[in-house]
């Protein structure tokens, strides 16, 4: 990924110098090796601070709404990983991004790592991380000694179940693994839940959702949750709420959120990645994706721009709502 990183910086500088783009959305080196932060670079010089490494999981497509807005001048260069391009396409479909104002470099991706998973393996006081040449191992330096982890064990959830390494939209590619296919069975978590009894499922969600602190990180990070004003923030909507005043409010928030993004969610995994409480929010979205695939035929939001989502279309032979009762574990 270092090679890719260098190429990205080089191309970004070129594009900026030749005037093709006026700013660059990428990741900037953070305080630690693992906390690369999304950043809008406005000068070619500042691009030296751009990084592209194992910890650039953040999806930059949502930033393009603001950066390609009508009043926003100039073109912005955005670095998109394969999975990010689905979100970008979905936003194009919904007319939220002006394609003309965005220049996309599709960056090859070998899977992003989740520092929380490294910590969960018992590493404390992490002061640095190196990637071994084998592309499979991370060396973790800590205040309390060094150790190694297998990259596969610390992948971000979305990368554990990667959709494949092909970019769905781009102006140019800096990638050498476009043809790599999907990884893992992303519905296995959903299936495990479906196999449980309703009581077990209820207990599972009660446990997870009662942790929710309603920080709205999931919503604000979600490229599909891009409403100018969320119904939950709108006093006039009748459902506005701010905190887990009652455990029902959390369920309501997450169910409605999942419903609002059903058929639009590209399974980019940002919700789960950003949740400070580690709630597996992707299990909501993947449930809807799985249902949609099973009920209405496989559909991948963001596969291409301009698709008609499953909830804004129908067939006369669709299954009946009551029929969902006939499945699921018992």
């Amino acid at each position, binding site marked *: 990924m270092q090679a890719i990183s260098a190429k990205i910086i080089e191309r970004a500088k070129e594009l900026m110098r030749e005037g093709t783009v006026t700013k660059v959305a990428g990741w900037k080196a953070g305080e630690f090796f693992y906390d690369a932060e999304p950043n809008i670079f406005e000068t070619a010089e500042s691009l030296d601070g751009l990084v592209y490494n194992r910890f650039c999981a953040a999806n930059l497509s949502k930033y393009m709404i603001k950066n390609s807005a009508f009043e926003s001048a100039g073109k912005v260069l955005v670095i998109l990983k394969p999975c990010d391009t689905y979100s970008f396409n979905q936003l194009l479909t919904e007319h939220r991004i002006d394609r003309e104002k965005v220049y996309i470099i599709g960056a090859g991706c070998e899977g992003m790592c989740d520092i929380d998973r490294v910590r969960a393996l018992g590493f404390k006081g992490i002061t640095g991380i190196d990637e071994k040449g084998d592309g499979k191992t991370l060396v973790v330096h800590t205040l309390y000694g060094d150790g190694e982890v297998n990259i596969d064990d610390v992948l971000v959830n979305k990368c554990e179940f990667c959709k494949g390494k092909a970019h769905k939209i781009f102006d140019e590619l800096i990638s050498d693994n476009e043809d790599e296919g999907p990884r893992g069975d992303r519905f296995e978590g959903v299936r495990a839940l479906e196999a449980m009894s309703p009581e077990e499922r209820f207990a599972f969600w009660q446990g997870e959702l009662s942790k929710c*602190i309603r920080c709205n990180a999931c919503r*604000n*990070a979600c490229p599909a949750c891009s409403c100018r004003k969320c119904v939950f923030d709108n006093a006039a909507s009748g459902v506005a709420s701010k*905190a*887990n*005043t009652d455990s029902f409010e959390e369920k309501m928030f997450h169910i409605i959120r999942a419903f609002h993004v059903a058929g639009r969610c590209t399974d980019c995994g940002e919700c789960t990645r950003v949740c*400070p409480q580690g709630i597996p929010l992707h299990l909501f979205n993947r449930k809807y994706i799985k249902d949609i695939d099973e009920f209405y035929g496989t559909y991948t939001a963001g596969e291409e721009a301009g698709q008609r989502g499953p909830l804004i279309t129908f067939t006369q032979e669709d299954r009946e709502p009551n029929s969902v009762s006939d499945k699921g574990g018992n």
Partner: protein
Amino acid sequence: MSLKKIALTELDRFFSAIALKKKIYLPVEKAGQYDYAPWEPGITYHPEVLHTVKSAKSVFFPQSEDLVRYKRSGLSLAITEVPPEDEEFVVFGVHACDVKGFEVLDRVFLSDPVDTFYKARREHGTVVSVMCPQPEETCFCETFGIDAENPGADVQARICEGTLYMEALTGKGEALLEELGGIVAETNEGKDSEAYAKAAEEHKKIMEKLPLAGLTTDGFGAEADLLTLFNRPEWKELSSSCLGCGTCTYVCPTCQCYDIREYNTGKDIRRFRVWDSCMYSDFTMMAHGSPRPDQLQRFRQRFMHKLKYYPDNYEGAFSCVGCGRCLQKCPVSMNIVKVMKTLGGADHE
């Protein structure tokens, strides 16, 4: 005053003894994460856990609480007050940063006019602090003058070689240890005992090695020039990736902004207070607009508040305790350290 001790293996007895008389809050695991919750039989204390997700402030300043209830019928209105906390309780296992966080909140809530709900909890709560276990790379409490080895509070504790040593620092603390006389053993070992000191020694070594160890508050605080800091151009890039979520606020031990809302149950109207975040776009939104229309201004508000406005109002004290939660939890890896390093004084220019 001598130390009291109890073996970690005996902690269950310790908690049950307290629980007979009062609630005891401690970090409890729920679906893989720790937060303060009441102890119940079967819950074990995990001394190795450094941070709960929400800080210990949630015990004294819960995320939501009812303030008053109303009933309307026709033209008339009935107001029912919600009584403040009136039962004693214990908070166990608070680390130095969170203990310091209480002080930050105290200045706000206990200054005139007093917040009676907060005050009642503070008065009824006895805090047992514990010297933190292995600090993380994100820790920088020393920047704010915190002595992590001696966290303070009503009872201050330290774990050495499988034993919890406790020292009452206040009357409340003494009373608590008194009550537990049959459970905790008096020790002859003083604070100068070898094991006790060794634990602190090792801790200190780590503290010195922390990557953020040298971070200072230079350039901030009551002496800094408000408008100069406020007008620094770096705020723009610093805030460019902020999602405007409330994660940093809600995990912060010192953030104290709140909203007051109503919930109509159909039978009565509850007026309740909930945590709020200055990072939210609707925080200052009024019918005709907001004085902080962009995320830049909202982002700046949060950090100016912690590093400048709060010190201005409270004799130079900062509204940050260096716990590092925001460093770990921000979805886009933005945090107060980056702000301090970018805008701070000579040391980091």
